[in-house]
């Protein structure tokens, strides 16, 4: 049996000397989707970057496909997981297609140029996020939501078995939020991709994920099935604001009380 896509063992994460995750044990198997929820500054992004191997853990270890992320070479790590960060400006111009093609980097040799095959993968990814036809546009002419979808297309071009998504729905309008969640759910269902994503909407987390991880920001974490963890009571404690929970035929939604 192959090792899980991602495992964390006794993982400890600090931000500026403050412990935000004390001891986290987590496994992401093929096709599993985990939502990460917490207040602003609770350490969601830092945890995700640590899980991606982009930051060294303060304690414990992160395994990507069974190998310690700390010793994995960056190229090999990039073939095992993709990471969606919060958007950064590119000081030099580039086109939409060029940007999407950067996802092919870990699959190309040092002297290779992107082939027709790579270009086709990138075009398909752009079409999947609704950016077909914008290939030649300069990135700085895109809207915030279009840039976010371009970043997602770059991840699809990278085509890893594991996606770590930091606020994938940022800047997206409602229909693109749903389309993005459907897209990654489809990847989990059909390709067995593992997904860990930071979400701010507990109802969407309940609908599109199998498990939820709550970060309380003081080192405490709660991990469990969405049905068990995403309840009005626990979310009240998490966000410090009372929420009323409504169940409707398998879907669950929350309203501020």
């Amino acid at each position: 049996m192959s090792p899980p896509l991602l495992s964390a063992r006794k993982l400890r994460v600090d931000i500026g000397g403050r412990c935000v995750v004390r001891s986290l044990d987590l496994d992401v198997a093929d096709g599993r989707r985990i939502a990460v929820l917490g207040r602003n500054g609770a350490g969601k992004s830092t945890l995700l970057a640590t899980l991606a191997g982009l930051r060294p853990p303060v304690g414990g270890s992160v395994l990507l496909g069974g190998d310690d992320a700390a010793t994995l070479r960056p190229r090999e790590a990039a073939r095992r997981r993709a990471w969606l960060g919060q958007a950064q400006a590119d000081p030099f111009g580039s086109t939409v297609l060029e940007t999407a093609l950067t996802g092919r980097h870990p699959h190309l040799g040092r002297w290779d140029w992107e082939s027709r095959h790579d270009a086709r993968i990138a075009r398909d990814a752009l079409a999947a996020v609704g950016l077909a036809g914008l290939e030649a546009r300069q990135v700085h002419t895109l809207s915030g939501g279009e840039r976010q979808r371009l970043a997602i297309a770059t991840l699809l071009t990278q085509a890893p078995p594991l996606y770590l998504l930091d606020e994938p729905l940022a800047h997206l309008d409602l229909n693109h939020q749903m389309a993005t969640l459907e897209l990654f759910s489809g990847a989990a269902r059909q390709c067995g991709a593992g997904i860990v994503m930071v979400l701010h909407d507990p109802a969407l987390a309940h609908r599109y994920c199998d498990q939820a991880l709550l970060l309380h920001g003081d080192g405490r974490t709660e991990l469990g099935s969405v049905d068990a963890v995403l309840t009005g009571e626990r979310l009240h404690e998490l966000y410090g604001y009372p929420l009323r929970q409504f169940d409707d035929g398998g879907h669950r939604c929350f309203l501020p009380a």
Partner: protein
Amino acid sequence: MPTRRRAVLILAALLLLALASFWAALAAGSIPIAAADVLAAVLGQDAPGADIVRQLRLPRALAGFACGGLLALAGALMQVLLRNPLADPYILGISGGAGVGALFAIMVGLPVLGIDGLAFTGALGAMLLVFGLAHGDGSWTQTRLLLTGVIVAAGCGALISLMLAIAPEDRLRGMLFWLTGDLGQAASPWPPTLALAVALVLAMPFARELNLLARGLLQAQALGVAVNRLRFAIFLLASLATAASVTTAGSIGFIGLVVPHLVRLVSGNDQRLLLPASALAGGALLMLADTLARTLIAPQQLPVGVLTALIGVPAFLFLLSRQPR
């Protein structure tokens, strides 16, 4: 996406441009020499003016090409390293350090080798100082690097002003020429030529990783770039390339900032094309500027740094105004 074929075409065109500048540098001067005689002289045959071509103009043209190439390459690398389009090879204080060394050597009357030696020592000193201070706490961020470099450069600038103020009158002209950049002081063209070849060979294998680095450190790391190692290597490479050029010909301005942008406007921002194209274009532009500096008001010579700016600024503004937005 620039295809490999388009890259080869652009590089071939720039190579032709460099050859044309090279020919102009050999033929033009206070004694004009015919094309056939230039060719004969380069091929080592006897021709009228062969000695002038071989002993005076050829070394100078070669030094000009090498320094221009080094500066443009270092500028392109610095712009990626600092993720800042306004970065140039001198921004981290390399030329300031070299200037302090060179001006001190000129002031106390050392020979050419002493000037070159102290200039190179000063450049290395500035590089190590910036690296040590910026890397001190291991954070090694762009802002910290940039601020440290700018402050070290400012300190060097103050020392340079001090030396200009207290230097004897008869040395001032030499010091000013060194500061604006002058290929007449190049001792031998071979060290910078070798440096350019080595720098290109070392930089090219990492060109695609540099494309990713320009987009952001974490993004590059997530896509499989060993970011810290790469940035350290680029810092060293760009600094040493700058030091090699500044030691040869003083701090010639403008090439390192504007040539990468000129090339970018024509060829896009793919470093696999940008790095070699910048080296070729920088070399060609500096040879051309130096030829003009020698001939415009001959027999008097102008500092080439003035000419690089006078040619480059209008060319840059023209290309910028044509760029669709």
